[in-house]
């Protein structure tokens, strides 16, 4: 009988305590209720949720709050899909913009076999620190340093250094642009995912100056600009640039390039 009483007392005590605390919590939650924008949650649900920080805010929650509050445009997330942006724009009541899927592209092809090493660098294994020390590790002053600062920065594990040059895995890259922001040589740019051709060199010099340092670098001969049927290639100094809105993807430029520095893509 004693045991039964003890159990009963315990059950009653816990039940009463539970009811009391529950009531207190409900009261507190009503009293300290914070008004939130219902749109914020809807926006947040349509964001990718990687918390990569490419938008410049502290993760997806922060950018959702900023979009809902009107402090950031509806397309603040640079890696949003078209579907998600449509929904966010609908929530915010603005016209949806067209999303062009982008990816990072490294404009250097100077791997170890093509460019020789100039100095023996033993300092911090970080491209920015190496560039600050003044001299270039490789013969080409404009090429990839190859110490992998972009690799450490990429939240999607989409970039790697292979044979001394960074290379982007197009399947994984979402085009957040964080690698482009840290590259001290400015070699990485965001290009359209559906591009058919791209120039893989950034050396602003011409002719022998390039030939002396790299066996594949662009010589600035500008034959690609002359052969392009739509005039989509133009010279920026001695480096060819492609205007993708004019490019029809015929690949003539890649065929005529004497150095084979214009890459073709099959996508």
């Amino acid at each position, binding site marked *: 009988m004693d045991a039964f009483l003890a159990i009963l007392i315990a059950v009653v005590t816990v039940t009463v305590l539970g009811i009391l605390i529950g009531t207190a919590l409900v009261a507190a939650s009503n009293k300290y209720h914070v008004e939130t924008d219902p749109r914020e949650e809807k926006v947040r649900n349509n964001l990718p949720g990687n918390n990569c920080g490419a938008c410049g805010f502290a993760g997806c929650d922060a950018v959702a709050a900023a979009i809902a509050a009107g402090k950031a445009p509806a397309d603040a997330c640079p890696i949003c899909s078209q579907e998600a942006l449509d929904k966010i724009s609908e929530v915010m009541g603005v016209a949806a913009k067209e999303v062009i899927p982008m990816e990072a592209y490294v404009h250097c092809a100077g791997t170890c076999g093509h460019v020789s090493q100039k100095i023996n660098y033993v300092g*911090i294994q970080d491209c*920015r620190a190496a560039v*600050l020390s003044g001299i*270039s590790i490789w013969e080409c*002053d404009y090429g990839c340093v190859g110490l992998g600062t972009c690799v450490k920065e990429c939240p999607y594990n989409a970039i790697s250094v292979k044979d001394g040059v960074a290379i982007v895995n197009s399947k994984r890259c979402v085009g957040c642009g964080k690698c482009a922001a840290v590259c001290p040589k400015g070699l990485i740019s965001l290009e359209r995912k559906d591009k058919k051709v791209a120039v893989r060199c950034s050396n602003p010099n011409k002719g022998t100056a390039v030939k002396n340092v790299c066996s594949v670098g662009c010589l600035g001969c500008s034959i690609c600009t002359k052969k392009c049927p739509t005039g989509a290639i133009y010279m920026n100094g001695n480096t060819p640039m492609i205007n993708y809105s004019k490019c029809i993807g015929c690949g003539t430029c890649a065929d005529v390039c004497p150095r084979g520095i214009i890459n073709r893509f099959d996508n």
Partner: protein
Amino acid sequence: MSRMTFKGGTHPNDQKQFARDNAFVHYLPKGEMVFPINQHIGKSANPIVKKGDAVLAGQVIAEADGFVSSNIISSCSGTVKEVELRQTAAGTMAMSIVIDNDGKYNQVDGIGKETDYSKLSGSEIISKVKAAGIVGLGGAGFPTHVKLSPKNPAGIHHILANGAECEPFITCDDRLMREYSDDIVKGMEILLTLFPTAEGDIVIEKNKPEAIEAMKKACAASPMSDKIKVYPVKTKYPQGGERSIISVVTGNHYKSTQLPADAGCIVDNVSTIRAIYRAVAFNEPLMEKGFTISGDCLKQPTNFFTRIGVSYQELFDECGGCAEGKEAAKLISGGPMMGMAMANLEVPVQKAHNALTVLGVDEVASVPTTACLRCGRCNAACPLGLIPQYMADAAVRKDLARYENDLYGLECIACGSCTYVCPAKRPLVQYFKTAKAEILLERKKQQEAK
């Protein structure tokens, strides 16, 4: 008074034995001369010559752009070959005026004629210094006429001639003090007439007894001998740093955002002071300077007294190159503590350059970096009382707010004492230089956003 040294610092082997007893070799370059237009702190000069122009030695070829800037003077006669981007010793490309040297060294009229400067007013002296293109020759390249125009001239109580030359291997200031001691004292007299309330101190490390002796003799012969003193200090690195030298002589300290004038001092390298004397008394613009080539694998370490603009390679060849059976493993513009490693020697000697150090394989054997041992030697070695141990930690973790605000990382002068003493061989200075560059870049971005 009578402090001997500053807090912290380190004692690297001074390695002066290689070149200290070799008198200046007066060398007139034969090859082409290159003059970058940004050899100083401040705005780049504006080139006023173009390709094909004939120039004379001593002619202004690029004019100072604004107050904190400096004239660039041709140190040879010939024709302008090109105005183009050329590589500098720091590894960067800089717009440079290239002159095809005709080897005649025809000078502009009026250079080298002794003039009576005792009647000149202060502003006339300063404008002469400005016209001569004189900048700090010790290494920083700060325009001297700016230094000589402080906001509060009456507050200057010390003029320090920096002859410490604490960087290992370099001996050109030592030779200059031995061979041109009278010129330096006369330059000091000129500075003291500009600042009548100040006293002059010639600060020399005790590992240069001959220079101390020579300067003492020259001071005694001076009409201002009561105001000019030789101040021997302990041999310790970085004794020649502006902040170290001021704290030793006056006991004053100042922040990185301030100038020595805020601590009541003007600090000039001894070779700058000689250049001031030559400019004021002989109308001679800054064309020549001492330049040491030293190192353990050289055939003949040499102190050159040569023209600014000559290529490192020409001087290296002139002194005979490496000794037989030895090979250079590392080339440094400047000394081993603060100098910049170089990849090739086809770069010009600039106003603020004073040495080429050529080190053999044994000297530069690289030791792998290990984790921090928490021994605290770097903290004891920092001449500014910073905590390199924590600073490196913050820099590695990219905690730049802590680096800047809690640890005062921007005060670091990158002297390299911490890296020198680190038993784990951590590249501390490189961490700090990178962190500082990132902070300054961030600031610039924020300013542009505003």
